């Protein structure tokens, strides 16, 4: 087993996976730093789940090398998997068992090294009733069972495929807290999503994949820098439309009476200089829309 203290949590080099004529992964190269929350982003069908299943040794790469916590998942076996908590994208539970029995089975298969009170705490935080039958659970509730299973052993690495899919906003917030707690304890989280806004609050690092290849990889701060920040300014007199349109980094300026909206890319310094020369009665600059940066990355890749 490799040295887990220095190795990245996940590393893929030149990974190719084909299903007949379909190439799901086409030379995937990625590195997820250890001890960080990494968002693995891409549209549906980009190859996220295939890549994750290879990390978990559920699927085998045709070519390339894969390392998880410093070990090849194909040879790491149960010892490596004991250090990982996994939530599949399509979670199907054994309906012959109720929720409590399911969690107890997973706990025992993890060698009984699971703190039962922590499992109860996870159920409470995710609003999961463990006495329920698994048969007839909604997809959101099934996902909660899967999340408890993934977190229950406080693993070094959490690999979560579309973790918030089908979960209501309150539980999404509880899940985000769990991820934050895991990161604060120095554990690594690798979570996939096709919706950037879901992960932008949690992730330190993002990897964007499209058509089986990594399109972009970097810190969320860098992505945020790439994003255009929206602004909405209301003026006490005639809005300085031309000044705004020619200010550095400002684009898509639209005027509606005394109100001007637009986007600013990079530093807002030029915009603020224009505004400071006029009477501004209100100014709103919400968080940069990373979704916008995310989509632009795709567009850049297409062009």
């Amino acid at each position: 087993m490799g040295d887990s203290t220095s190795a990245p949590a996940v590393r893929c080099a030149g990974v190719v996976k084909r299903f007949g004529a379909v190439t799901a992964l086409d030379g995937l190269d990625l590195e997820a730093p250890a001890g960080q929350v990494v968002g693995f982003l891409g549209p549906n069908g980009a190859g996220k789940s295939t890549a994750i299943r290879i990390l978990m040794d559920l699927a085998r790469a045709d070519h390339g090398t894969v390392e998880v916590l410093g070990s090849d998942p194909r040879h790491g076996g149960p010892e490596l998997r004991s250090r990982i908590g996994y939530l599949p994208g399509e979670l199907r539970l054994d309906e012959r068992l109720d929720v409590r029995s399911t969690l107890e089975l997973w706990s025992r298969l993890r060698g009984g090294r699971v703190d039962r009170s922590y499992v109860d705490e996870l159920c409470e935080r995710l609003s999961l009733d463990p006495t329920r039958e698994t048969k007839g659970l909604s997809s959101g509730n099934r996902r909660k069972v899967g999340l408890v299973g993934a977190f229950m052993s406080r693993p070094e690495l959490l690999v979560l495929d579309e973790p918030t899919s089908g979960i209501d906003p309150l539980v999404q917030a509880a899940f985000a807290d769990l991820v934050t707690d895991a990161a604060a304890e120095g554990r690594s989280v690798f979570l996939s999503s096709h919706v950037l806004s879901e992960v932008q609050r949690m992730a330190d690092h993002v990897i964007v994949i499209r058509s089986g290849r990594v399109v972009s990889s970097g810190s969320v701060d860098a992505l945020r820098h790439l994003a255009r920040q929206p602004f909405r300014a209301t003026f006490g007199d005639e809005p300085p439309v031309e000044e705004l349109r020619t200010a550095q980094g400002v684009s898509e300026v639209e005027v509606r009476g005394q109100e001007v909206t637009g986007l600013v890319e990079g530093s807002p310094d030029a915009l603020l200089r224009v505004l400071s020369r006029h009477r501004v009665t209100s100014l709103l600059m919400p968080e940069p829309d990373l979704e916008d940066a995310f989509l632009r990355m795709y567009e850049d890749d297409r062009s």
Partner: protein
Amino acid sequence: MTGGATELLRSGVRALRRSAMWWGVGIVAFSTVNIAFWPSLEDSDSLTSLQDATGDLLEAFGAQNIATPEGYMDGQMFALMLPLLLSGMAIAMSTALTAGDEDAGRLELLHALPVARRAIWLARFAAVLCSTAVVAAVVAAATVLAAQAFSLEVSASRVVAATFGCAALALFHAGVCYLVAGSGRSRAVSVGAGVLVLVAGYVVSFVFPLSDALAGAQKASPWYWAIGTQPVTDGIDPLPLVGLLLVTAALVALGTWLLEHRDIRSA
């Protein structure tokens, strides 16, 4: 056996518990009803008339000596129906726990837990083995008791041995299904393969001997290895039976090897 393997075996047996119970109830009822008819049939001489009238045709059902107590047990149960029923049960159980659960995506998370792939699948085959053994033991005990109750004079040890032979045949077919599921095929294909081998084995063992040209092929049938043609009348030959169990072990080993070298299907 490690704690994880014990746990996997226990969960497999638990999953099959209800199914095994109903199969057991059905087979015991079938056995008891057949035996209950023996006193009236024995007194009426109808079995002797049937035997004289149909002659060799009864061989196709292992019932050529149906007028004797042992021949009646063979013809009504042990040569055809019990092997079919137990094998049907084992095929259903084996495919449910392997290809069936994989088709349904229920193995995805299990395979991501710190347990070896082979441990999961072998424990599931062991659960089929245990369930089949329990059902066979109950059927054997119920048959012996029913035979005593209805004055069907057969050796209890012959009945137990014949039931064991039928259970071994059932496990062989479970092994065929396990091999096909291990290679990554769906439940439908796995069931189909098991049923095909089951029916083909019966035809080769019981129908082919009606033709002089084909009779030699009988010894290639797993049915013949497990129970011969009249397991209660002739007794069970242990050597081919052990051979069949070894072939079953080989099927399971090959299925496990194939499993280790492929992707697990997602839902």
